[in-house]
């Protein structure tokens, strides 16, 4: 959705800068004019810029933003496959994660500086996309941490009441056994390629 208020504010900022450029000479001649120039050419643009970038950072967590690179399209489609075992599809289709931030919710670390790490990884993606080239097979930079799963499932009834989870809980918390060693399919690319998608009634 277009951030109308932000766009209008930036538009006003541009118009103001143009007007101040044209009226720079008379304004610079007296003290009040110089303050107007300071506000219009320095303070306001910096404020608008910070606001805009902060909005941009929040937008960079959106599903739409992640899937805007063509190499991510197949991963986007995997959210819709008809497979109750595929983690991405189950979480998306059952609204276990917010749909507008699906990728970010599962792929950011919930530790300290998790957001910063995710954004820096995002810059690595952008570098690969535009400069170094996308690898033939897209992989995670490091093994998927159990803590990301446990952040939500930790004390959930469905998780706690499963005997198998209780029996290996210490290994799961220590990370010595990966959640993905049982829940093997994260993104079902086979069904994406076979066009087997779930259709909501």
């Amino acid at each position, binding site marked *: 959705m*277009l951030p109308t208020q932000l*766009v209008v504010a*930036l538009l006003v900022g541009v118009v103001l800068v143009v007007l*101040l*450029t044209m009226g720079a000479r008379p304004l*610079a001649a007296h003290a009040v004019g110089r303050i107007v120039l300071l506000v219009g050419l320095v303070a306001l*643009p910096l404020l608008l*810029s910070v606001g805009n970038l902060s909005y941009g950072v929040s937008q960079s967590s959106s599903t739409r933003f992640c899937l805007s690179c063509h190499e991510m399209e197949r991963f986007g489609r995997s959210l819709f496959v008809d497979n109750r075992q595929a983690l991405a599809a189950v979480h998306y289709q059952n609204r276990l994660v917010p749909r507008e931030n699906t990728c970010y919710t599962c792929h950011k670390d919930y530790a300290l500086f998790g957001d910063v790490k995710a954004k820096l990884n995002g810059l690595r993606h952008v570098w690969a996309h535009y400069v170094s080239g996308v690898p033939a097979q897209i992989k995670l930079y490091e093994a998927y941490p159990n803590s990301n799963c446990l952040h939500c499932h930790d004390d959930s009834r469905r998780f706690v009441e499963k005997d198998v989870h209780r029996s290996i809980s210490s290994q799961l918390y220590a990370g010595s056994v990966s959640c993905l060693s049982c829940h093997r399919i994260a993104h079902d690319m086979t069904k994406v390629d076979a066009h087997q998608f779930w259709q909501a009634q």
Partner: protein
Amino acid sequence: MIRTIRRAAICTGLGLVIQLAAALDWTPLTFIASAVIGLPLILVGALLFLRAVWKSLKSGGPP
């Protein structure tokens, strides 16, 4: 001083236009353009303006 202020305003204006274009459609490319070109242009504009003011104050007043 006026010429420097106008240069500063042009930098700031360009920076804002880039930020405006990015705000219309946030994609990885527009985000990078906004952060790597738009914001630095605005900072350069601010520095140019402040330098012009500083020079003017040092020389004893407005043009």
